[in-house]
């Protein structure tokens, strides 16, 4: 008889070019760390952080690309059951911004229809090296009906806000869906999580 220690579980997936600071955003948020120059941690599938949103415990499972974006070889399955996508580029790197339409095509192809997408311009601590103007990114995000936020993983600017805003949005959507379709409401003896094979095993 154990109860899951959260009210909601969301899978958040990070995408964007290599080197834009995806892993740093995750580590800053989940561990309060900024490890400069550190690549993806070996063996870490996703990071977890449970946050409190208006009294409800929300467990965020934050998935990183595992380096597969380096040679543009992200697996489709990576996108499949994501509740939210954080599309990241580096404001000091025009190229990472130019690649966004390509990423959007991938999202369109493989991600779930209801996925919440947020565009993040990272590295605002390097303002002097900025190559992509804020206005340009905002316009782009608006045209693609995405949320937009600029962050600095290094200075911890807006990182908390990024994830908390996402969590709020996801809760809002989840409640909306619950109203629309009562069947998805949790029921006795049944977890809310994606049931992994090993969980539904009968023996």
């Amino acid at each position, binding site marked *: 008889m154990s109860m899951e220690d959260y009210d909601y579980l969301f899978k958040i997936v990070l995408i964007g070019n290599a080197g834009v600071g995806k892993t740093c955003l995750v580590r800053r948020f989940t*561990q309060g760390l900024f490890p400069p120059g*550190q690549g993806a941690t070996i*063996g870490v599938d*996703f990071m977890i952080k449970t946050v409190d949103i208006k009294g409800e415990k929300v467990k965020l499972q934050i998935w990183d690309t595992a380096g*597969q974006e*380096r040679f543009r070889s992200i*697996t*489709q399955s*990576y996108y499949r059951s994501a509740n939210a996508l954080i599309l990241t580029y580096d404001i000091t790197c025009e190229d990472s911004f130019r690649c966004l339409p390509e990423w959007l095509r991938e999202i369109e192809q493989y991600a779930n229809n209801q996925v919440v997408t947020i565009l993040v311009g990272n590295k605002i601590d390097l303002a002097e090296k900025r190559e992509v103007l804020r206005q340009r990114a905002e316009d782009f995000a608006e045209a693609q009906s995405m949320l937009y936020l600029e962050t600095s993983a290094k200075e911890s600017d807006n990182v908390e806000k990024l994830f908390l805003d996402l969590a709020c949005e996801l809760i809002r959507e989840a409640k909306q869906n619950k109203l629309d379709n009562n069947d998805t409401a949790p029921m006795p003896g049944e977890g809310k999580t994606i049931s992994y094979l090993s969980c539904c095993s*009968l023996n």
Partner: protein
Amino acid sequence: MAAEDLPSEFDIVILGTGLAESVVAAACSRVGQRVLHLDRRSHYAANWASFTFNGLLTWIQEHHEESQPEELQDWSSLLEEGEELIYLNPSDSASIRNLQVFCFTSEKDEEEEAQSAVPPSTTEEEKGEAADDTVDETESADPKEEESEEKPEETAAGQEGQGAQTAGEGPEVDQSHPSVAQSQSEPTRKKISYAQLVKEGRRFNIDLVSKLMYSRGSLVDLLIKSNVSRYAEFKNVTRILTYRHGNVEQVPCSRADVFASRQLSVVEKRKLMRFLTSCVEETEEQQAFTGRPYLDFLRDQQLGDNLQHFLLHSIAMVTEDTPTEVGLASTRHFLRCLGRYGNTPFLFPVYGLGEIPQCFCRMCAVFGGIYCLRHSVHCLLVDKDSNRCKAVIDSRGQRISCNHFVVEDGYVEANRKNVATPTRFISRAVLITDASVLPSGSDQHVSMVTVPPIAAGSPAVKMVELCPSSMTCMSGTYLVHLTCQSVGSSYQDLSPVVTKLFHTPESHDQEHRPSVLWCLYFNMADGDGTQVQGHNLPSNVYLCSGPDADLGHDHAIRQAELIFQKILPEEDFCPPAPNPEDIIYDGDGTSFPEEEEKQEEELVEEQEVQTEE
């Protein structure tokens, strides 16, 4: 997405992202090997891939185009002392052949026209209109070939060419009559147009191979053991069906099925249940039939025709001359798998089978494996003395050293392999239909259908029908996969079954059957014959075969495990990946206040106890 250079030193280089290669990649990376995993295609999973509808059309087109054999570049300048070159096959044209595409639905978006004109009620006029439309449809059924975009009627170069010709004519012979009749009998059923299929193309995930996961098979065991299961979701196959006496019937296999079955008498129910419970144990009675056909054993059990059919074709899924011990083993496997996750022994991955190799690739990447699609290996550098592959040269001419090289057998020239000759093939058909072969209360069934040979010498066909909630087809359609061991071309083998089970312009009096909107036939090389180590290759080069004709995945998993054991005989095969919550992170050796960090977090988290009172 800049074109970075690859590192030049790895423990293992793997070429091809099929299931066996991907499992090897994950297994090696998991235990700390540096893995480079490449595929020259732009998609994962090789012949195990799933495509969106549009992706499949592109794939078809690619396979139609005469693949221009690349000029073999001379890399001998990169040779070092005592090395020689082995060139890999520059194109993979051999594994897929006899592609044929038919479209039996209207080109244009019928719905739009109808919507602008009349509200969706059934008026006489509309019926007439619908009928007219369908005539148009059939007329436009095959002219698809005019579209340069996909050239459906052209077959790949191959000896089966004439089969394709006759096939192409098939639909034209008697066009309108069946369609008209059909639209009259079901005036409200609006056919989904080709344009809609394309528009909703991304709703499809069409597998090149059609397999199911036995719930106690080696793939499921491996997914659970390795924690790779966390990357995918699965659906139960909900029904086992069979084609018999011109009808599709449900095969009762679980206790609940037997109870509910309407086609079995109570005595048959008892006999079936008794057989299923008793055959789990070995008996002397069974041993007496060793070497004799399973069919004889079943006959001896006096089960009657109904049960015999179910047990032979749908549960054991063997042929009439399969020996008893094999039939029984297969029956037991079926029964062992039953009820673990649902009412049938099978699972199917949501979004299609192509997800599975990708999940293993993700595992490999999480443990540091490097991935690069659209990137190939041109040749191997072999040390003459030791006959070992020391390095590979990639498609950019970079020399990448490695200790082991694992490769999909399609990349290796035929004369270097030790394979069964002539190469065996699997016949495949993919249909998009507008209804289930056995409509029932729920429209969300995933069904496994066994079709015994419909004539002497015909192959037994396995058919899987997927519903939209499996995320493999758009709503309002079903995706049907047919598979059999090739006797002739895929069209020759499978179109008679399609004609019997579905409504196509070729079928007669089949109006009540589901209509085929679009279909694809092709043959794929049967991976069953490949051996892990080819005779004429260095000892540290390992071949992975493509998909085999079996329903399960055992062949590829067994192969992957074998390769892994040869490469790393001391290591554990795919130990569980740690739960992310249990991982200790330490940045740069600097001690950081993890403990306090945690504490704070926990305070935010709240008060709950499972004890007390």
